[in-house]
């Protein structure tokens, strides 16, 4: 399926969602969540060639930082999707907590980077 088809299907599903919300409000949220997850999956599938290209481009020249970056981007994507779903449901407090969780997860992931940076600073000061 191409990009225009995906956009057209998204508009159709949103219209269906509005219809379902007006008839049976309680089914609107699960439908919205399914639609969000499906679209995120399609976006990831569309980005896979890009990610593979980036990986092949930089793999010979990097020491593991690229996989760290990819994990950080993945965590960011999942966090933003979850936070949006929470906000759509009217749960702003939960949305902000999900964002906080995502940030902590990314910071924990970047600990090796911070350690490497501290070591480099020490090396420069020893010059």
């Amino acid at each position, binding site marked *: 399926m191409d990009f225009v088809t995906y956009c057209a299907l998204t508009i159709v599903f949103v219209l269906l969602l509005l219809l379902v919300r007006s008839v049976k409000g309680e089914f609107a949220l699960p439908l919205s969540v399914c639609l969000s997850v499906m679209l995120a999956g399609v976006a990831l599938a569309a980005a896979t060639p890009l990610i593979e290209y*980036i*990986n092949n481009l930089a793999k010979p*020249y990097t020491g593991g930082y*690229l996989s*760290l*970056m*990819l994990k950080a981007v993945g965590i960011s994507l999942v966090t933003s999707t979850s936070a949006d779903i929470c906000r759509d449901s009217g749960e702003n407090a939960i949305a902000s907590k999900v*964002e906080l969780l995502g940030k902590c997860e990314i910071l924990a992931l970047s600990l090796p980077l911070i350690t490497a*940076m501290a070591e480099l600073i020490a090396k420069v000061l020893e*010059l």
Partner: protein
Amino acid sequence: MSKKYKKFLTAVTAVFLLLFLFICIPSFAGEEEALETLSPDSYIEEILDALPPEAAELLPKGEEGEAVGQADLSYVVSLSLTFLKKALSSMAGYFAFFLSVLLLGALAEKFERAVGGEKGGGPAAWVALLVIALEAFTLLYGLFEMVREYAEKISAYMLTLNGVIASVSVLGGGFGESAVMTTSLSLLVTLIGGLISALLLPIVRLSFASTLSSSASPDTNLRGISSFARSTFLFLIGFLSTAAVVTLSFQTMLAQAEDSVAARGIRFAASSSIPIVGGAVSDSIRTLSAGISLVKRSVGAVGIAGLVVMTLYPLTSLFSARIALSLSGYAASILGVEASRSLLEEVGKLIHMLIATVAMLAMLYIFAVGLFASSAAALA
């Protein structure tokens, strides 16, 4: 005159001639020994030994005389192309890595802006910036170590030339010139060491700190400090190299004037005070000076070839890193990752400073070798 007296006089003259021959042969032999020790091969070997092994391997192979003769323009061009090929592949590698991290960082920033509004990138974008900063500063540190090593090699090489200059100049009668040249070369070596430790190091540390803090916190803009430090450094090295070149030129002109007088004095004394063979000794000084000028031309060529093989690699590495960082900076501005763009630009400016340092060191060395090669004219 009777036959007896004629025979007696002939015998005495023959004895005296034989005695003079016995006196002359050792002095001729000594001159030949002196000429042999002044042959190009011994000095070239000494200077080639002073080259670092990786640089010596790149010189043309063969007998020292042939090797020196082959160190011409086509050799330099082929060596430059070899280094350029290596530099291009490393440049492509660095650019590929920075581009991939910038792409991922731009993606992360878009996601986080969608969540957090237009406040700016969140932790994922910050991780991307951290990865770029780490890789850029590791590259800069490696290049700085390479420049420091280059300065040490140039200093060691110039100290070797110092000994050669002193002995060749003294043997050729260049007493004043020898003292001036050795003092000047020692001064240059001290200048190089002081430049690296007293100027370059503190500025690299200062620029590193200000760039890192400005990148970590966009509200803290300390780039003005590093920009001022860099421009001061570039001004200082320009001033020091000009002053060194002017001072050496004046000293060499005076020394050459002294040596031509000293050489003429020696020739006159030799021809007038040493009987029969004085003229031959005076003539041999001309041969000596021709030999010295040949040695100096030969050593000069080896000096230049040694400089080329030692200097091309750091220069091509620095240029390739500079180009890679500039291209990555343009890519960052296209992708809208402003923090990474300014970081890459700042690191590129620091590499520019290292390029200026290497160029200045090479220029000082070429000047020293040029003076050495041209000082033979004073004895002609």
